[in-house]
């Protein structure tokens, strides 16, 4: 029911039923206004549940929002804003919320005590996966994901400030005002739709005017300060090192086009002031979970802030003075207060309604909505008709963020609560209710004082002025669980009750962590925000220890659940990693080449032609281009590093196993690079362009790694070397031109014709390419007469088109990764398939390349006995007339295919159109001594068994005459 008829109402649906609500109010308020008490089913026993709170701590009222792919499960109805057309549904109930079959669990609950599942479902063994687990899984879980791609937009952002104020209640507003007035850059963040915190729900005065007016004035002042940024609907979710905070913003105006649903903020603050307030805690009494039983402060929020009355005859049950506020406010609003039950004998309270002191609620009735409660009072019992019970077990300061760096809160006996331990988070101070200071006057004063301290610490000159407000002390006598029989719920979300915790203690799960893990207390979506303290008080009682001695579990981020989409915003689809495109990308795509990932790059797999139906046909043709005419391939993705300086050659001698200081200007040499652990890191060619100028190439995959490695050597290991390295990978578009016609093709684009005399094998230098200054390297990764020609990237696409067009005239054309791979396998050149991080120079037959004349990275470690043992698996070639597979294992011909018998494995395979047979590279124990032998290749996964002949890995043109000629 609403106290007054609102003006602008919109319509939304709950389980298909059309409901009127006020835009911006929480869905929970609209449901209550429409008399809807039953909104959810509990996790384990499927008990009927209603709205319990008016904030982010809500335990019961979790709903699903939206339909189809947009459906979002487990949304708290208490923080979900009403908007036109919003579709809200209940969850975890079948066939309907009202008649839920799984409620049978509640009937058999005596057999489902904490941890029962550890003790059964063990026989027969195979039934776990087949029967028990599927049944348990189907019963478990709250809401459901749609299983479809999330269609909504999310965002991430960074923000920076001097002072981050977390929470905008009285303490937070005062802190922001004080710091802002002093000139600090302030961000004030609050999870509510409006700032003011507790003041929005209380009937109090500040400076002689209603608190809510004071809030509006404060907000106006903050908005007028350019150095203050207000962030509403923004929950600070985690505290991280060096003043970094995570925060989740629910962007206003859900589902507007282009607008993100949520934004995950990374806020960096020099200082933070935590003003997170406090959460009211429930009392454990039998059947305290019926729809209609709510937190006392939540009842005030619905009445005072949202103008909604949650019941017609409300009862209040508390152990502290604060509970009586609810009774007073209800009476003032003209709502019937059926009874006020205060567990304290000595409570001094008055009101125009029945008050029972020294009394307790011992029973409740009403399955789908509270109908009555039973009170124990003066040795007797009394039943009271009521449809709403407001309970208050006292307040828990919201200390969570102060524990995110493993800090432990401190127990304060006088308020029976944990408060933050100072300095738990470097740079963070606390003020107000989260600090255990519950009165408005104390909150305002602390907020101002703490902010002044913080501002002064930043070198500013703050002034402190504190408005007048209510400072009436808050008194409480702890009551955690009402004595007697019946199930008294503590963790409403995970259906943990007092007996579960006692059972845990009985079975020696006495550590608070064991109790939590055994009973699942505090592990539900609310992470025990309201229930943990009650639970550990019950545990302390059961184990005969005090609460401080029992200790708490650790609060960990995030403070409220954070959607994966928000924290992973931008990565859906291609956004996970940058895409890198070569200059020839468009031209390759225009030739219908499938583009495949090579690290972050895209490279053409092959260039299909009319009539070709299988990649192998294209590949064979492209291999033929290179072997018989000329092929063109974009090799720009290989790393290129410019190395200059007086010690450039010394640097290369140190990072390569072989000598580079002896390399002549205008020549290229192959180099092998080790990690310091003695294994091969990368290989490539390095060209000497001048006396003190080299350009190194790396493999595509290792380009970044090698660059960092060189900087490491120069800055850390050998800062005595005067040399500079810079990547020129992107500067040059580089193309391999390979095949018998390579020189002829090249001469069609070069400004001056070349021949073998001027440009022999392994020569390099500068050339004019169609009027553009370029570079030419006579190197070959195919074993053919070949060059790599480079031009500044702006001309890359143009040169690629020119070269491929000319190649086609000569009976050749472009070739892709597939052909490139076949060409290099035929020649026994290794790539990352062979250099997989575990191979040594010895393994690939390059032990000779480790120069004895100098030290180099990895040389000492490579000399360890295990790295050059003859029993190691060595690179070999394998031939067969039938197709082979990579990743197959190698065995003696008649050996059983077991681990102990495995002698090696294959790394790369191809069909060689040149040799017209199937080839493989692989590693074989003592392989170099076994050339000519026949062994067995076995691939269990693809069911391939072949006899293969072991041979030298260089299958084609072993003398290298073609490349040199």
């Amino acid at each position, binding site marked *: 029911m609403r106290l007054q008829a609102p003006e602008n109402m919109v319509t939304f649906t709950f389980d298909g039923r059309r409901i009127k609500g006020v835009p911006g109010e929480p869905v929970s308020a609209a449901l209550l206004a429409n008399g809807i008490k039953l909104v959810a089913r509990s996790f384990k026993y499927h008990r009927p549940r209603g709205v319990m709170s008016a904030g982010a701590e809500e335990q019961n009222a979790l709903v699903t929002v939206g339909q189809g792919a947009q459906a979002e499960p487990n949304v708290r109805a208490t923080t979900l804003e009403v908007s036109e057309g919003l579709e809200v549904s209940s969850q975890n109930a079948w066939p309907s919320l009202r008649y839920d079959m799984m409620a049978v669990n509640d009937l058999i609950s*005596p*057999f489902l*005590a904490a941890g029962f599942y550890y003790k*059964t479902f*063990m*026989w027969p063994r195979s039934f*776990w996966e087949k029967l028990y687990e599927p049944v348990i899984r*189907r019963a478990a*879980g*709250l*809401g459901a994901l*749609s*299983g*479809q*791609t*999330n269609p*909504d937009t*999310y965002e991430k952002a960074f923000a920076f400030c001097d002072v981050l104020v977390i929470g905008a209640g009285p303490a937070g507003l005062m802190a922001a005002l004080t710091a802002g007035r002093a000139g600090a850059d302030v961000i004030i963040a609050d999870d509510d739709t409006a700032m003011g915190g507790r003041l929005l729900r209380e009937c109090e005065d500040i400076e002689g005017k209603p608190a809510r007016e004071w809030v509006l004035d404060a907000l106006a002042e903050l908005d007028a300060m350019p150095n203050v940024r207000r962030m509403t609907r923004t929950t600070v979710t985690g505290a991280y090192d060096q003043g970094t905070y995570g925060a989740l913003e629910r962007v206003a105006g859900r589902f507007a086009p282009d607008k993100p649903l949520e934004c995950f903020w*990374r806020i960096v603050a020099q200082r933070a002031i935590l003003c997170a307030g406090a959460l009211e805690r429930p009392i454990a009494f039998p059947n305290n979970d019926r729809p209609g039983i709510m937190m006392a402060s939540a009842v005030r929020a619905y009445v005072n802030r949202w103008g909604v009355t949650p019941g017609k005859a409300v009862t209040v049950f508390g152990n502290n003075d604060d509970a009586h506020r609810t009774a007073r406010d209800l009476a003032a609003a003209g709502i019937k207060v059926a009874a006020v039950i205060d567990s304290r004998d000595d409570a001094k309270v008055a009101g125009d309604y029945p008050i029972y002191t020294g009394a307790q609620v011992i029973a409740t009735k009403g399955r789908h909505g509270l109908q009555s409660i039973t009170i124990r009072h003066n040795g007797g019992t009394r039943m009271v008709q009521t449809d709403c019970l407001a309970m208050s077990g006292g307040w828990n300061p919201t200390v969570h963020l102060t524990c*995110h*760096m*493993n800090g432990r809160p401190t127990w304060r006996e006088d308020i029976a609560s944990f408060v933050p331990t100072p300095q738990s988070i470097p740079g963070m101070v606390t003020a107000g209710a989260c600090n255990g200071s519950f009165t408005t006057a104390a909150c305002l004063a602390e907020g101002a004082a703490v902010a002044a301290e913080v501002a002064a610490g930043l070198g500013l000159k703050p002034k402190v002025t504190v408005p007048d407000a209510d400072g009436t002390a808050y008194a409480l006598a702890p009551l955690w669980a009402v004595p007697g029989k019946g199930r008294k719920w503590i963790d409403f979300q995970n259906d943990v009750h007092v*007996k579960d915790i006692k059972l845990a203690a*009985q079975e*020696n*799960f006495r*550590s608070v962590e064991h109790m939590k893990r055994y009973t699942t207390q505090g592990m539900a*979506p609310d992470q025990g925000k309201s229930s943990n303290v009650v639970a550990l008080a019950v545990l302390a009682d059961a184990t005969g220890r005090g609460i401080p001695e029992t200790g708490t579990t650790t609060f*960990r981020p*995030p403070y409220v659940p*954070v*959607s*994966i*989409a928000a924290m*992973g915003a931008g*990565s*859906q*689809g*291609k*956004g*996970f990693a940058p895409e890198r495109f070569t200059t020839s990308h468009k031209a390759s795509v225009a030739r219908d080449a499938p583009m495949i*990932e090579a690290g972050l790059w895209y490279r053409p797999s092959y260039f299909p032609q009319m009539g070709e139906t299988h990649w192998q046909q294209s590949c064979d043709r492209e291999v033929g281009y290179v072997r018989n005419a000329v092929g063109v391939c974009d090799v720009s993705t290989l790393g290129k590093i410019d190395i200059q300086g007086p010690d450039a050659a010394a640097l290369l001698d140190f990072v390569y196993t072989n000598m580079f200081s002896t390399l002549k200007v205008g020549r290229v040499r192959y180099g092998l690079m080790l*990690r310091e652990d003695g*294994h091969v*890191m990368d290989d490539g060619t390095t060209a000497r362009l001048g006396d003190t100028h080299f350009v190194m190439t790396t493999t595509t995959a290792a380009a970044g790694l090698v660059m960092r490695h060189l900087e490491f050597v120069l800055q850390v290991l050998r800062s005595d070397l005067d040399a500079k390295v810079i990547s020129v990978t992107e500067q040059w578009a580089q193309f391999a031109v390979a095949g018998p016609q390579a020189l002829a093709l090249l001469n069609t684009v070069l400004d001056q014709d070349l021949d073998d005399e001027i440009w022999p094998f392994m020569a390099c230098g500068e050339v004019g390419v169609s009027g553009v200054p370029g570079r030419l390297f006579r190197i070959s990764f195919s074993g053919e007469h070949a060059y790599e020609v480079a031009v500044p990237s702006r001309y890359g696409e143009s040169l690629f088109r020119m070269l491929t067009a000319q190649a086609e005239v000569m009976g050749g054309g472009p070739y892709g990764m597939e052909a490139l791979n076949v060409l290099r396998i035929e020649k026994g050149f290794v790539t990352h*398939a062979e250099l997989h991080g575990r191979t040594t120079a010895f393994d690939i037959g390059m032990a000779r390349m480790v120069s004895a004349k100098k030290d180099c990275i990895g040389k000492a*470690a490579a000399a*360890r*006995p*295990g790295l050059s043992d003859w029993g190691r698996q060595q690179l070999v070639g394998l031939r067969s007339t039938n197709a082979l597979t*990579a*990743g197959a294992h190698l065995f003696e011909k008649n050996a059983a295919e*077991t*681990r102990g018998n*495995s002698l090696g*494995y294959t*790394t790369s395979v191809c069909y060689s159109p040149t040799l017209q047979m199937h080839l493989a590279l692989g590693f074989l124990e003592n392989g170099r001594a076994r050339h000519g032998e026949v062994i067995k290749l076995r*691939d269990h*996964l*693809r069911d391939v068994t072949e006899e293969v002949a072991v041979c030298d890995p260089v299958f084609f043109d072993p003398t290298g005459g073609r490349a040199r000629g």
Partner: protein
Amino acid sequence: MGYSGLRVIKEGFFGQKGWKPVWRDPAPKAAYDAIIIGGGGHGLSTAFYLAKEHGMTNIAVLEKGYIGGGNVGRNTTIVRANYFLPGNSEFYSHSLKLWEGMEQELNYNVMHSQRGLINLFHSDGQRDAFARRGNAMINQGDDAILLDRDGVRDILPYLDFDNVRFPIYGGLYHPRGGTARHDAVAWGYARGADQRGVDIIQNCEVTGIDIEDGVVKGVQTTRGVINAKKVGIVVAGRSGQVAAMAGMRLPIESHVLQAFVTEGLKPVIDHVVSFGIGHFYISQSDKGGLVFGGDIDFYSSYAARGNLPMKEHVMDAAMTLMPMIGKAKVLRSWGGIMDMTPDGSPIIDKTPTEGLFIDCGWCYGGFKAVPGSGFSFAHLMATGNHHEPAAKYRLDRFRTGVGLMDEEGTGSQHNLH
């Protein structure tokens, strides 16, 4: 006291009053035949197998906090035997067999669920590397199936096959891979050990190791001196500190690995899915929470809490691979302290001190090793001989370079794994 469905029903009728403590809380004795330092999964399983397989019951497990409070209680619960290098292959194969009989062996339901694990690959080269792995698994007698893209689509239809940054080429399917209820493993071994007479001593921190003439004599603890003929160090991330008490420097760096859990959701992910290229792996617990993790935070740390960039990276990977989980919400993230070795494989060995043994270096893969590690370490401690499946986990392999087990191929140096 035996556990059974019947017993659960009986106790249901009688208000659960008959359940006894799952393990006792004895005071430490002055001396034991053997002491295990560390009451985590590996320490408790070592104690269990010492008692069960070798009849050593006059032994104690010393735990500085509460048992199972380390990595066994903060991981992503994955159980698998999909290693390919000799040394690892036979060890994890043995460990998985122990998992398969664990519930009956312990009379404790650890909810070991062999729901199948799929390692995705995203290029021809990765496929071939996984083929080598899968073939090694079958050589070992374990199970592996190579799925192509359509094969993956059949069992994981919710992955993004059309727009993902690194397209899915296929997956290596390990049907016997799965998950288990992590805490229960610690409790189950504790119960089993306790029933065989092992003293499990919580809140007992070891502060020194007594060594005379190169022979171990016992340990000093916050609860007094305890003598022992044999001492086993099984303390994961704290290995460096405890080994230092015996004058050792280990090839170990401690790093934080984060893990995450969402709220309970109706069944949506039925397998364990591993997205290696994005360093992301996920499964759904029986309670419905999505449990997932990523790579280590990449700096040595004992803080047991993670940083934001790695959290974001994990969520980024989730969103590109399976954008249907975007609306699931992370409830909690935590960090375990991983004892990282240079080559990413563990150590189960004697130390230079006679009677002092060490079991460490499990990196971020220790959970699935809990039974195998305990079994093999118990064998070593009891007999003085290496247990065959764990015989290659030698401390000196880094010095000699013999038998390095670098499964990832990133190098046998620190901080490359």
